[in-house]
């Protein structure tokens, strides 16, 4: 089931009505059942790897506390099972394809094995969340969960199961252990957040999508047109992914559960490192805590720290998909952060005003989105080789038109950025609770009206479902 389907409009009120009539234990049972219905709605077999992962990681974590001498073995077992799940469903086809390319290059016959499995939605998200839990238990940051039901809820909580945020056990399990109180004020905020998420998805992202798809379907796009398409994709992917997160956080709030922030206006980042502190925060902090720091982090001198950084970003790329363009995308970000560190060491970054830093960071981010969106490496090379100096005037105007069109759809993002900025808070004291009942209702009604009136003619799945 997806958030933007009519089924969800029936599913969620039904769950909420039952939920608030039950005790805490009953609420958790209901949430687990609802999560499995939500997740297995279209493909019931998706539940099998989810259950497998849940049971193995629950058992391993419990085993670590019961059998301290076997802690390392249990940790490795749990991680191997999670990585094997990912490897089987997500990377086996990619590995086989590349092995066959190598075999063909060396004059051997390719392996005659067909390996194309449907990737269960959200697999990368819940395996990372489970790995995080097991590692946290291993290092003693959290205690192993004794109750299988509560742990199953931690892995499968439907608002965040398919596309995050990738939560931490230390944040979620205590919430599942405590009583939830019906909070009407929280409900108002949650409903508005959900509407804002829906608006971002089906008005902004889905209206930008056809423009982007058309540009990327061009066989020979010119320089301005391809970059206008990349700008459109930057808007699309942000509205799409952050929209999902807002719906997830809003839904969770209606259930009395708080999910972490996953985005913090990433397009006003002032450096590549700052971008990753604002974009997909749950993934970047997970990678920092469970990959970068265990690898050695900043220790061992600049060369080793650089290696750790590049390796972490290569994994970030691979996490997104089994394709070379994602690896390139990850390496590119690692390289950018290295350059930023070097410039910082030289003291160059101090010279630039805030706006220049934001513009430069947005520029390099757009380059990364081209690497992310274009999976065909041949076409990617073509796109990068387009010269702005060999472009007909008409193409510049076509590019300007595409950017203007995307900008109009993206205007609410800018209004939101301004309204929620520190400046607005200081100057106009505009904060959510200060809007008052009518102000809040006005904003929410406007969002619903916008959804009814301007939602895209064609809609598509959330982009991050494929990861």
């Amino acid at each position, binding site marked *: 089931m997806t958030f933007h389907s009519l089924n969800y409009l029936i599913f969620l009120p039904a769950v909420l009505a039952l939920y608030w009539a039950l005790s805490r234990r009953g609420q958790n049972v209901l949430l687990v059942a609802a999560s499995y219905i939500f997740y297995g709605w279209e493909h019931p077999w998706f539940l099998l790897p989810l259950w497998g992962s849940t049971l193995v990681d629950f058992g391993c974590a419990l085993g670590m506390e019961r059998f301290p001498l076997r802690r390392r073995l249990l940790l490795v077992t749990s991680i191997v099972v999670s990585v094997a799940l990912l490897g089987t469903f997500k990377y086996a086809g990619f590995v086989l394809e590349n092995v066959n390319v190598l075999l063909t290059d060396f004059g051997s016959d390719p392996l005659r094995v067909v390996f194309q499995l449907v990737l269960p939605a959200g697999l990368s998200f819940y395996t990372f969340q489970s790995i995080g839990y097991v590692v946290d238990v291993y290092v003693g940051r959290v205690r192993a969960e004794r109750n299988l039901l509560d742990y199953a809820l931690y892995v499968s909580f439907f608002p965040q199961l398919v596309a995050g945020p990738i939560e931490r056990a230390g944040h979620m399990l205590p919430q599942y252990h405590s009583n939830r109180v019906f909070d009407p004020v929280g409900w108002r905020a949650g409903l508005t957040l959900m509407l804002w998420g829906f608006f971002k998805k089906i008005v902004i992202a889905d209206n930008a999508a056809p423009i982007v798809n058309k540009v990327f379907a061009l066989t020979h796009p010119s320089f301005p047109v391809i970059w206008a398409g990349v700008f459109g994709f930057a808007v699309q992917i942000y509205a799409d992914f952050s929209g999902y997160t807002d719906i997830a956080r809003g839904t969770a709030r209606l259930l009395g559960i708080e999910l972490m922030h996953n985005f913090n206006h990433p397009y006003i980042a002032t450096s590549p490192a700052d971008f990753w502190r604002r974009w997909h925060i749950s993934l970047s902090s997970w990678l920092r805590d469970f990959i970068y720091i265990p690898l050695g982090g900043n220790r061992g001198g600049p060369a080793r720290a650089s290696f750790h950084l590049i390796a972490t970003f290569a994994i970030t790329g691979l996490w997104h998909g089994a394709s070379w363009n994602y690896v390139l995308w990850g390496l590119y970000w690692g390289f950018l952060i290295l350059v930023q560190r070097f410039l910082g060491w030289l003291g160059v970054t101090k010279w630039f005003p805030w706006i220049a830093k934001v513009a430069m960071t947005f520029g390099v981010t757009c380059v990364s989105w081209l690497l992310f969106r274009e999976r065909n490496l041949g076409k990617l090379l073509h796109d990068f080789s387009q010269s702005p100096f060999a472009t007909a005037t008409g193409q510049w*105007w076509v590019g300007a038109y595409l950017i203007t069109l995307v900008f109009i759809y993206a205007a609410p993002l800018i209004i939101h950025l301004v309204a929620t900025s520190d400046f607005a808070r200081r100057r106009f004291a505009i904060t959510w609770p200060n809007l008052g009942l009518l102000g809040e209702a006005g904003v929410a009604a406007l969002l619903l009206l916008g959804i009814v009136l*301007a939602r895209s003619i064609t809609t598509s799945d959330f982009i991050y479902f494929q990861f």
Partner: protein
Amino acid sequence: MFKSKESLRLLIFMALVLTVPAVVSHVLPAKGHFDAKPIARLRAKKPNIVILSDSMVDNGVDPELLGKLLGGRRVELLWYGGTASAVWYFRLKNYIVASDVHPELVCILFRDCVLTNPTFRTGGIYRSKLETAMHPDEPTYQLVLGKGFAGEGDMQRWLDKIYSLDARRYALHEKIEQSSLRLVATAGPAVSKLRRWINHTFALTNLSGAGAEEAAAVTKARQSKFDPDPRRSFLPHMVATAAEARLPLCFVRVKRHPSADGTVEQSESLRKYISDLRKWIEDHGCFFADDTENAARTPDMFVQPVSDHTAASARERSTELYADKLRPFLSP
């Protein structure tokens, strides 16, 4: 558990959020405005021949030359790229018949199975073209497309009743596109020029895979049987409307992009479909012409590599070939 004051405020909040958009939905018109300009144009020109079609006639027919070749008649092209049977029906009824000009011949140029594919090019970006040719209350629309647009499920229909702006969004998207064009035009080229550049940039031939998709959509009904059921096709409504207005109606099947030897591949089921279509049209007193096997329309006359559109360089030759097709249906 409930704090009563806050709960009441939540109820007020939810009531406002749900009702305000519903009220606004019913205040705003649910459809794009009817464009009456073509009626005035028809009345001013008083054409002898009116041709309804999509972009097939863009370079395919030169109206002045066609008129000259057909004995000095006035020819009006009522074409719009990206239209199909639904738009043609409403243009026939609401423009040609409504204008009262009584042309000698109304001609519809179509590809393969488009005449009996009622939903083809009625949604998405094509929707606004349909709305501008429709009055607010069109029983034929309700009969053929009403259910499809209201949605199949009860939930969808129920939501459409409360928030009746579903159709309005097509017009809104059109307005946003127009605003973007005008904004860019304030700093640069004229809107018409900009639109030409955009159309040229995103021409089907420049899009990978799009040509094949378009071709597949046009022949969607290729494997199905010819079905003249008035609940599932605009064709019977076109014929009935023309008959009622005593307008001679002619359907011309255009030749699609041929292979190198000049022939168009046609499956047995397509041949059967066309044969049934022809019989039905002629039995109902209309004319039918098929250009598909016209050897004189050679591959070099088409936009390369795979488009059904006529190349600009072949406009004159193409017009001559259409004149040959239409001549038998006109009085000397």
